[in-house]
């Protein structure tokens, strides 16, 4: 083992330029893989964040909407029916709409306008300031990203632009609280009382919000949060025309989410495949160049295990160095990105990506290890 380490490290050190160059190639692949993973996480998170963090176990849709939030309409009667089901602790109506915040000379800033019932499931916890208190009020909670982008603070006034009929209408709301990041549909969110939401949301005809407006979905907290499936079935049996799902199913069915994630996963798989081929190719070329030397080593009695271990150690060392450099570069680049860019470095998926790249080194090098094992010592005498 020590002889294998000695041979492997001496070769790396005496050819450090070549090996460093190759480590940099591995580093580039690492950056690519980590960035695609972070982009996937960022885009996924931007799509699902609000639903994923929702303080409810089940979400009810209109059954004909096929889990499309935009197509789902649930009226007040249905909400009451849901609320009466045994095992449902609390319900909250949630409405979604797209509006924008005018930014002066700059492009307006698109946001998700989410209508919630104050104090009910759907309203996010407040980090700064206070929560919503009334069903209808010129008040809003903004999420962290809106606060960062607009520099708004608690007590400031926020202007929203919404299309009513053919005209832009502007609504002034007081920021009473700031929540953590709660993106929905790749946009940061502004939360308003449900009646206010009904007034502001884009409509064909401008008008005041209804006292008990139809919302898109109903969020439910359960008495026993572990009984998801039985409760889901009970709800669907007892309340007509609804479909109830858990949070994961809900965000997986947001428009484009699955397609987007599978596209990014495919990109990552290709990046890893390219990594395997590049590492495999490099070490195979190197092994081919060293055939006479490997033959000589075997002729003088070097066991196959030492020859194979030396190649493996080199592969692991080069991959480790490349992954370390790539990870550091990625960290450096990541800190330079503004929070609005949907790149999220999630430790678990990052660690998974790094582990996969570390594994792809030896996998890529398997062919060259096998090849080096098959070199005949006779090649040293020109007879191989």
């Amino acid at each position: 083992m020590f002889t294998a380490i000695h041979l492997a490290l001496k070769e790396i050190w005496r050819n450090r330029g070549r090996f460093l160059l190759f480590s940099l190639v591995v580093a580039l692949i690492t950056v690519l893989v980590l960035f695609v993973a972070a982009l996937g996480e960022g885009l996924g998170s931007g799509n699902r964040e609000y639903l994923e963090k929702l303080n409810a176990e089940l979400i009810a849709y209109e059954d004909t909407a096929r889990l499309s939030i935009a197509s789902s309409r649930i009226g007040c009667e249905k909400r009451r029916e849901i609320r009466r089901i045994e095992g449902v602790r609390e319900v909250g109506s949630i409405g979604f709409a797209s509006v924008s915040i005018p930014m002066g000379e700059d492009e307006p800033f698109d946001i998700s306008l989410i209508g919630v019932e104050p104090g009910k499931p759907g309203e996010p916890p407040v980090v700064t300031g206070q929560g919503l208190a009334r069903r209808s009020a010129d008040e809003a909670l903004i999420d962290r990203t809106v606060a960062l982008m607009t520099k708004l603070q608690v007590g400031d006034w926020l202007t929203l632009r919404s299309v009513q009929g053919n005209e832009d209408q502007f609504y002034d709301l007081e920021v009473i609280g700031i929540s953590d990041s709660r993106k929905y549909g790749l946009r940061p969110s502004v939360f308003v009382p449900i009646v206010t939401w009904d007034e502001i949301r884009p409509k064909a005809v401008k008008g005041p919000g209804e006292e008990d407006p139809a919302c898109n979905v109903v969020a439910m907290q359960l008495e026993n949060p572990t009984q998801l499936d039985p409760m889901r079935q009970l709800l669907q049996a007892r309340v007509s025309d609804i479909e109830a799902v858990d949070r994961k199913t809900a965000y997986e069915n947001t428009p484009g989410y699955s397609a987007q994630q599978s596209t990014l996963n495919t990109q990552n798989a290709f990046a890893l495949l390219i990594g395997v081929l590049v590492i495999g190719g490099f070490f195979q070329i190197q092994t081919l160049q060293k055939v006479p030397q490997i033959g000589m080593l075997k002729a003088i009695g070097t066991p196959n295990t030492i020859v194979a271990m030396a190649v493996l150690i080199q592969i692991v060392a080069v991959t480790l160095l490349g992954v370390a450099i790539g990870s550091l570069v990625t960290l450096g680049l990541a800190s330079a990105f503004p929070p609005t860019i949907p790149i999220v470095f999630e430790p678990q998926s990052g660690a998974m990506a790094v582990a996969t790249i570390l594994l792809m080194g030896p996998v890529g090098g398997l062919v060259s290890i096998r090849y080096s094992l098959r070199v005949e010592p006779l090649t040293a005498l020109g007879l191989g």
Partner: protein
Amino acid sequence: MALALEARSVVKTYPVGGGVVQAVDEVSFSLQRGEFVALVGPSGSGKTTLLAILAGLLSPTSGNIIIAGHDLAAMKEAERARFRRRNIGFTFQANNLVSYLTALENVELMLRLNGEFNAAGRRRARELLVRLGMEERLNSLPRQLSGGQQQRVSIARSLINQPTLVLADEPTASLDTERAFQVVETLASLVHEQNRVGIMVTHDLRLVEYTDRVIQLLDGRVERIISSEEDLACLADPAECAMIPMDVLGIEE
């Protein structure tokens, strides 16, 4: 003197097309410790194949190679590799050294492989290289050494483990005349001095003046074994003994 190597009726055949080529044909000879022998013959006479069989790199079709009482044919592959490491030293025609190890590290590699990489072994490696005139080049990489210096390092590596048998395959093929003589003289003197058995495959008959015997192969068979000093001198320099007919020495005119 003790018998160190014995080749008994060694045969090596290769299937070629529908027939069989006899590369080595019933070769038998024995060598004693302290002997330095040249294996000569025209191209295709089976020299290198015989060398590979003697080294345990190639199994004979039939016959036996006994080195210091051990029959190579009775050993498994891994056992043969271990035996080679401990009992056989090699000098090849080219690609002799590990390109990324210095001269000293190349010699020490054999110590590492045999688990003898200790202070005494390292001192021995250094002394051997110094003895071969490499004191200024101990830390040079092979690419920084001349062909002759590389061969000297290779000779040091072949001897560092004090093997029974030292095999050299055309060790002077890439050297100029002066360096070729120096290298073979050094190899011969170390084999004699350390009481090893040395076998050198060569095309260059001038080098046989440093050997004790010449085994001449022709078509895979031992054509003759020349051992008298007079015949060896003639083989090395035919112009000096024109009275002896060349065919007596087995030299093609």
